[in-house]
């Protein structure tokens, strides 16, 4: 074998590089549109993972019904989706059909020419398939034009899941032997104490996975709402009765956090709860390491994949048996939109129309993904899972609430800067003992949040927006009743 000289090495390198380049180019060509002549391919972007079986099934059904249209689906990482879609629009590679990203604001997406005005397709007759009051400026319309449509409906997004096996072992049962679901804060405390004691340290009463500061806020959200604090953990807006965040002024927050710390001190909470993530916590609950966990309907999908169904659920545990505030949602909904730059807008509309049909909605419910925007779909859906049925039955605890942007669209020009530390941080600080004064920490957070709102309003006013802090105040709102926001 002759030694490799420099010229020989260069020649070999060039050959290898050339071959690699040729392969790469061939790969590019292969990945481009290979649909049969006369077939239109629609690019579709979303971030659905646990909802994937439902969506793949819809694609299959749609393509069967529309043989000349193919859907090329791309799943993106949810937390990077806004950046990716932004880059796609900048680079002229935006998909025909897209899930509307949470940022930038919906109005800005319309303003930047990302989304297609659907008025020519979404006629009054088409919109008639939805219940009245489903289309609003700032929700799925902008400047009177339709850009999206409702897809889902709301039920309480958080539930308290209880492990039937551990509850039975601890004797927390009704006379008929079924699990006695906790309804009040005291019930939760008693159940947690019983499980921790009766299992002899093998299991704990409560558990969560707060590794990325995700799930402690959910406990606050679930427990203070029942106590009568309609803003929950405040992520969707302040308490609209007063137009402010009231973490310090409203004693429910401090009361619940004192209770949480008491649970921790008494050893009712799974010790590694701050180390693990929500996914791990879910798995540990499944394996009976603790008896209660707070989570959403997405938990059910994971557990049914594992054939685990020995659990029940309840929502809004309250200091008394009757919750004083509920979960809330803005009227209308938006999930999907068609790109303004789509060259196959008619075909994209056909796909959009398919996803927004009562039949697709019914399949969504039957797949256990959530509730459909169509009441008939929710009613007619054949639900197999006992737990999902229980979730659907909780929808009476979700009501429409005030939406400042409907009353004054100028509100959307207000940018409320993030505060740091925010509620998830403060909760972690209190739980781990780095913050010791609950009331002081909550009052400080309340002040910083309200200051951020005031600064945002001031900033918007200086740029000509006709807004004031009063836009967040709805004195006529009763949190126990549905609220209809009327445009001024």
């Amino acid at each position, binding site marked *: 074998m002759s030694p490799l000289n*420099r010229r020989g090495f260069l020649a070999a390198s060039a050959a290898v590089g050339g071959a690699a380049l040729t392969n790469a180019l061939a790969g590019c060509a292969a990945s481009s549109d290979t649909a049969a002549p006369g077939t239109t391919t629609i690019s579709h972007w979303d971030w659905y993972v646990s909802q994937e079986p439902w969506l793949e099934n819809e694609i299959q059904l749609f393509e069967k019904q529309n043989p000349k249209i193919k859907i090329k689906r791309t799943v993106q990482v949810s*937390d990077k989706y*806004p*950046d990716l879609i*932004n880059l796609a629009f900048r680079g002229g590679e935006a998909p025909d059909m897209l899930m509307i990203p*949470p*940022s*930038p604001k919906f109005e*800005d997406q319309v303003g*930047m020419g990302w989304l297609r005005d659907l008025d020519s397709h979404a006629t009054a007759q088409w919109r008639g398939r939805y219940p009245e009051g489903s289309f609003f400026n700032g929700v799925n319309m902008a400047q009177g034009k339709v850009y999206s449509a409702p897809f889902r409906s709301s039920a309480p997004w958080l539930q308290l899941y209880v492990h039937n096996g551990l509850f039975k072992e601890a004797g927390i049962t009704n006379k008929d032997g079924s699990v006695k679901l906790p309804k009040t804060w005291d019930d939760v405390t008693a159940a947690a104490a019983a499980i921790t004691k009766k299992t002899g340290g093998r299991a704990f009463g409560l558990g969560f996975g*707060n*590794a*990325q*500061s*995700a*799930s*402690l*806020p*959910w406990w606050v959200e679930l427990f203070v709402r029942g106590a009568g604090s309609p803003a929950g*953990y405040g*992520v969707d807006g302040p308490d609209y009765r007063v137009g402010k965040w009231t973490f310090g002024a409203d004693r429910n927050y401090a009361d619940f956090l004192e209770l949480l710390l008491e649970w921790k001190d008494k*050893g009712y909470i799974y*010790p*590694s*709860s*701050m*180390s*693990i993530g929500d996914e*791990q916590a879910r798995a540990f609950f499944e394996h009976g*390491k603790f008896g209660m966990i707070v989570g959403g309907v997405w938990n059910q999908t994971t557990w049914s994949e594992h054939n685990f169904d020995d659990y029940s659920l309840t929502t809004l545990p309250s200091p008394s048996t009757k919750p004083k505030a509920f979960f809330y949602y803005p009227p209308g909904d938006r999930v999907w939109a068609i790109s303004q730059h789509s060259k196959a807008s008619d075909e994209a509309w056909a796909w959009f129309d398919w996803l927004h049909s009562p039949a697709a909605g019914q399949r969504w419910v039957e797949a256990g993904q959530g509730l459909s925007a169509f009441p008939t779909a929710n009613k007619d859906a054949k639900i197999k899972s006992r737990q999902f049925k229980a979730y659907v039955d909780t929808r009476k605890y979700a009501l429409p609430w005030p939406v400042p942007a409907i009353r004054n669209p100028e509100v959307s020009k207000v*940018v409320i*800067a*993030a505060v*740091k*530390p*925010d*509620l*998830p*941080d*403060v909760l*972690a*600080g209190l*739980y*781990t*003992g*780095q*913050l010791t004064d609950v009331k002081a920490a909550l009052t400080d957070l309340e002040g910083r949040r309200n200051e951020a709102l005031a600064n945002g309003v001031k900033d918007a006013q200086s740029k000509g927006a006709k807004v004031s802090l009063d836009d967040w105040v709805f004195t006529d709102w009763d949190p126990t009743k549905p609220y209809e926001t009327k445009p001024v």
Partner: protein
Amino acid sequence: MQLLDTAAPSPAQRRPGAARPATRQKAGLWRRLWAARWSLLYIAPLMALLLTFVVYPIFGSLVYTLYRWNGIGSPEDFVGLDNFRQILQDSIFWRAVGHTFTYAIIVVPIQLAIALVLALVLNNKKLRFSSFYRTLYFLPVVTSPAVVAVVIQLMLSNFGDTLNGWLLDAHLIDTPVDWLGDPDIALGIIILVGIWQTLGYNLVYFLAGLQTIPEEVYEAAKIDGAGRLRTFFHITVPLLRPVGVMIVILAFIGSFQVFDLVQVLTGGGPFFATEVVNTYIYHLAFGGNQAQATEPNVGLASAASFFYGLMLIGFSVLQVLIFRSIFKRRAAGRA
């Protein structure tokens, strides 16, 4: 101290009256470039990548430090130097700086000491399976820190129960420990993992350094009757010094840039107890945590990043100056 004396005058410059006409210098430069054309060709791709992904972003992001910008669209909200003011006044930033320096100051000396001892052992030609051991120690380096962190996290959460059980039985603790959720312990665990994970780099550097020391020097020392300790302190350490200085500098720079381990193990929590500067910057640039989707502020993140970059340059220069001063003093002492 060859590595630190890059500014030392060349023999041509040392000659009296060595200034050359500009054209001759130009021709000389061109000749040197032509002579090194193959070397330049081979480093060109790396330089292009360096310029594109390191140098350009550093200066490109400088503009963003003057804006409040969420990273989408073009920056329009000019805030001047307000981002720098915010960073300097943010106690969480300074806490993150403190954690980063704590990490580096603990990791570097411990890791280098272990790496040097292991390198000395593995450099022994009589040691059997030395290649196997080298691979074994280097394996964590080639494993993605994110993967390492996920595995460690799983181990601590699953085995944590068992570990707590043992410790409780032995009456070493009264209540179970939340290994990554306890603010007094979490940073310590990250430091331990950090020492183990990047040990292999320094081990390889030290091995390379040891192999540059001529065997004859050791033989001469042996003939002169020097023992092992004396040989180590009077031959190995002085001859390893130029490489050692570089290893120390690189180890500190690497430790100051710790990110992935922290991000995956604790996300900087609980309540910023393990927040390091890079996770702090990341959280500013890409929003908060899962529970609170906050508006990212790329401008503020750029300001923090730029300021921290300046701090690191300052620290590196300080390190070099300190080493240079130590070596000069020693050289003067010997003279």
